């Protein structure tokens, strides 16, 4: 259903054009002022902008739409397990989300074609930050898409699902950072609290990954929370089909 519904393509077009524009803006900024980090690293730093609108657009229909048209009922009468239903909804959205991100790899490729000198110096297509950054995107995507699926599974209205997933994503991404800021601004936190806050720093995770430091804690954070949310979604559609 994802591939034949218009919101999918709207999300895709918005995503690619916005990201293209941002990449261009980053490159332009680099002409004027020298920067320490590579363009791709800067580019991946703003991953949260598209996440805020692409994830809700991709996932809000998934369960809520089926519920409001009633096709969830017909789905439930087939001998398909509920886990399979939720997992397929998740993987559909997740694969599409990753495809969108992979399409942004064309930006550095295009840029290197037009600026061969920069390409030779390796600043456009440095493999390590790209691999690290995309590993981060793949991992955090699990959590983000699960948030969207869960939001969609608890309501009948796509609008509510969209708003819910947007706000939850906002809290998860920006809220963690804000907590981190509070902690840095001098407030003495107990050891466990500061550990917890560090654990929730999605931006820090990105930094680590794009430097090539792959820690197991973010793995655990994204996968376990994602699995928890998907499990809850399964229970929800089991209870109120």
């Amino acid at each position: 259903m994802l591939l034949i519904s218009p919101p999918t393509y709207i999300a895709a077009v918005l995503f690619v054009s916005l990201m293209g524009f941002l990449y261009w803006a980053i490159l332009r900024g680099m002409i004027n002022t020298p920067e320490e980090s590579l363009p791709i690293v800067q580019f991946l730093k703003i991953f949260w902008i598209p996440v805020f609108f692409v994830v809700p657009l991709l996932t809000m229909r998934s369960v809520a739409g089926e519920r409001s048209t009633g096709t969830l009922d017909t789905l439930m009468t087939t001998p398909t397990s509920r886990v399979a239903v939720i997992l397929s909804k998740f993987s559909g959205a997740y694969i599409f989300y990753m495809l969108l991100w992979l399409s942004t790899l064309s930006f550095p490729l295009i840029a290197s074609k037009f600026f061969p000198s920069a390409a030779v110096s390796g600043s456009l297509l440095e493999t390590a930050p790209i691999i690290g950054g995309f590993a981060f995107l793949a991992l955090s995507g699990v959590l983000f898409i699960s948030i969207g699926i869960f939001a969609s599974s608890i309501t009948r209205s796509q609008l509510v699902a969209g708003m819910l997933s947007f706000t939850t994503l906002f809290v998860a991404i920006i809220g963690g950072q804000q907590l981190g800021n509070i902690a840095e601004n001098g407030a003495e936190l107990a050891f466990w609290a500061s550990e917890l806050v560090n654990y929730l720093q999605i931006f820090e995770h990105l930094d680590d990954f794009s430097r090539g430091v792959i820690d197991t804690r973010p793995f655990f954070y994204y996968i376990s929370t994602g699995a928890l949310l998907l499990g809850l979604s399964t229970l929800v559609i089991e209870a109120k089909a």
Partner: protein
Amino acid sequence: METTPSIRVENLTRKFGAFTAIQNVSFTVNPGEIVGFLGPNGAGKSTTMRILSGIMPATSGSAWVGGIPVANNPHEVKQRIGYMPENNPLPDGMRVVEYLRFRARLKGVPGRKISDTVLDVMETCDLARTARRKIIGTLSKGFRQRVGIADALLGDPEVIIMDEPTIGLDPHQIQGIRKLINNLRGRLTVVLSSHILPEIERSCDRVIIINRGRVVASGTSDSLREEFLPGKRFNLEVKGTEQSVTEALKTKGIETEVLEKEISDGDILRLSLRAEGHGDLGPQLMAALSESTDCTLRSLAPYAPNLEEIFLAATKRSWEETMDSPKAIAAVKA
């Protein structure tokens, strides 16, 4: 019992908060039967069907489909049931054949059989030539309904449950759906609900009337007629008075009750009456009235009350009375 009934329901109750949707519903459906579920809106038809198809758990009571308890083994039950929900929700963006293939895969039809199975159900539902590649959103209501039935037939179920399959259709389409249901007769057990009474009467072997969440009556329309509207009914036209007719019949030992009367064309009296007596009442009435000197018989026609009247009679009784009357209990057991 030699054969396992296709559906057995015992004391099924479902509550939504303080509201009791169905209470102590019990019935059985035998293999190959076409059973109509009849009841006013909000009587609990859909709730019962949803419980049977395993979408919704019951508050108490048990249900078996093909001998398998629905609550313990919903997965197994779903393989034996084809369910078409109320309003027949379909994804508007897909093509008919795509949708049916997708559903066949979901229902666990093995990969190499999918094309054949889908073609088969499309033939049964008369979709193969006309609407194969059409987009579901552009189909007329009758065709949408056929797609729903085709979907219910996929995966070779033993029992088909259809919630209001003829709702919102025009008479031609209703006839088409009725033919379709007739084609299924004998092959499958069909349970369908409706509040369109002639519909049920024509296509079903047996009727279960449900009102306010309770089974009020169950049986063939003949047996229900016998139970709720006993006696034979006749429409007659006579020249004479009502009194002359009843007296002429009384002398022959036929008890009558006039249900309706109407005078037309000056002196012609149209009566509809209920008669009680033994043997074939028609000729007896004819003989009695032709012997009478006070009235002349112009026409006499036996008249079987339709399901609508039975339904009204059955649902009119207050439900406490209905539940406790030995007749109703016998009817439920039947």
